[in-house]
């Protein structure tokens, strides 16, 4: 077993949408997804990507407005009579007002669509920027700065959905002592294939933040049960996961088979919770689970006062 070290990870920025994490350097025409606020090359403050895209849209709208203004001005200048002059001026004013009203009312829809087009146009530059960050991670690993490497990979993981990134993050995390106060992740680390290191990480995470065990994790454990059992204390590990599933009734409903199979490996406190749950819901299709729990309690906790009278 490798020796884990204590560490304090940098807090990650909370955003509603992933694109909010992208910062643009408008001078160097590069993108950045880490925590720096100024461009390393030119020193300019980064601009959020949406703002950079809005600037492009604004310029487009301005050119349309200038074109409209040009037509109106030429109409005024080419007027032969006073009536034509008055008409050109009046209609011109009405057209300007209409342009502003339209812009005010529908401009936001245009900005959204233009932003999507902007992202498509910038796809290659964005990919290059992410690749540059990945190279930085590689350099950090070479220099032994694993904490920085993890923090950078964690940020990149918001954009790149690949097993390579997930497995790298797991490998970095398995170097550290996990604590309750850390911003840990689990669902986002689930690889598409079985990974031994991931299960070792699950083992540690459950000890500190069992609430991270969600449906996808339970699904993974159920799918790769046979491989997990080959690990050292694999049965205990599945028992721990099954114990974490007892947080929600819907999980118990869906993963009854897993809980029944590994009921012998449930910690005492989890078994107590299960006993209370099955007592309440035994008539809701939990008969088999009820019998397995009762059997386990009767054989191992028959004289335990906490279990007395529950089943």
């Amino acid at each position: 077993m490798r020796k884990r070290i204590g560490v304090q990870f940098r807090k990650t920025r909370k955003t509603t949408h992933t694109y909010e994490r992208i910062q643009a350097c408008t001078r160097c025409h590069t993108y950045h997804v880490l925590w720096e606020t100024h461009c390393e090359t030119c020193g300019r403050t980064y601009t959020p990507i949406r703002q950079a895209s809005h600037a492009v849209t604004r310029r487009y709208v301005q050119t349309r407005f200038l074109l409209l203004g040009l037509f109106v001005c030429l109409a005024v200048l080419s007027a032969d009579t006073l009536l034509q002059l008055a008409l050109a001026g009046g209609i011109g004013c009405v057209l300007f007002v209409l342009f502003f009203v339209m812009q005010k009312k529908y401009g936001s829809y245009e900005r959204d669509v233009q932003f999507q087009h902007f992202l498509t146009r910038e796809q290659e530059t964005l990919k290059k920027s992410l690749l540059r960050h990945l190279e930085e991670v590689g350099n950090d690993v070479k220099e032994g700065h694993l904490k920085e490497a993890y923090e950078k990979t964690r940020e990149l993981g918001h954009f790149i959905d690949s097993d390579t990134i997930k497995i790298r993050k797991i490998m970095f995390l398995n170097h550290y002592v996990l604590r309750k106060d850390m911003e840990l992740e689990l669902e986002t680390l689930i690889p598409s294939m079985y990974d031994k290191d991931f299960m070792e990480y699950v083992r540690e995470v459950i000890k500190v933040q069992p609430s991270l065990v969600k449906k996808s994790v339970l699904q993974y454990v159920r799918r790769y049960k046979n491989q997990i059992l080959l690990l050292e204390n694999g049965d205990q590990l599945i028992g721990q996961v099954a114990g974490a599933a007892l947080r929600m009734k819907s999980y118990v409903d869906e993963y009854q088979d897993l809980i029944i199979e590994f009921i012998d490996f449930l910690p005492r406190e989890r078994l107590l919770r299960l006993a209370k749950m099955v007592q309440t819901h035994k008539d809701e299709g939990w008969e088999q689970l009820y019998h397995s729990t009762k059997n386990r309690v009767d054989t191992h906790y028959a004289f335990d006062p906490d279990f007395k009278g529950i089943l």
Partner: protein
Amino acid sequence: MLTYFLLFAAFLLLAVRFLKLLRLKRRNLSNAEIDQHLHALLNEKRDSP
């Protein structure tokens, strides 16, 4: 005559712009859709030539 022609051109420009904005409004792109698009762009696998 040129005045009327230029005013008509200005009006046409505004009408085209109005129709375009109306089409974009109907599309009503949400932020979640933009996010999804970004993910698709960054994770799309290129076919090898």
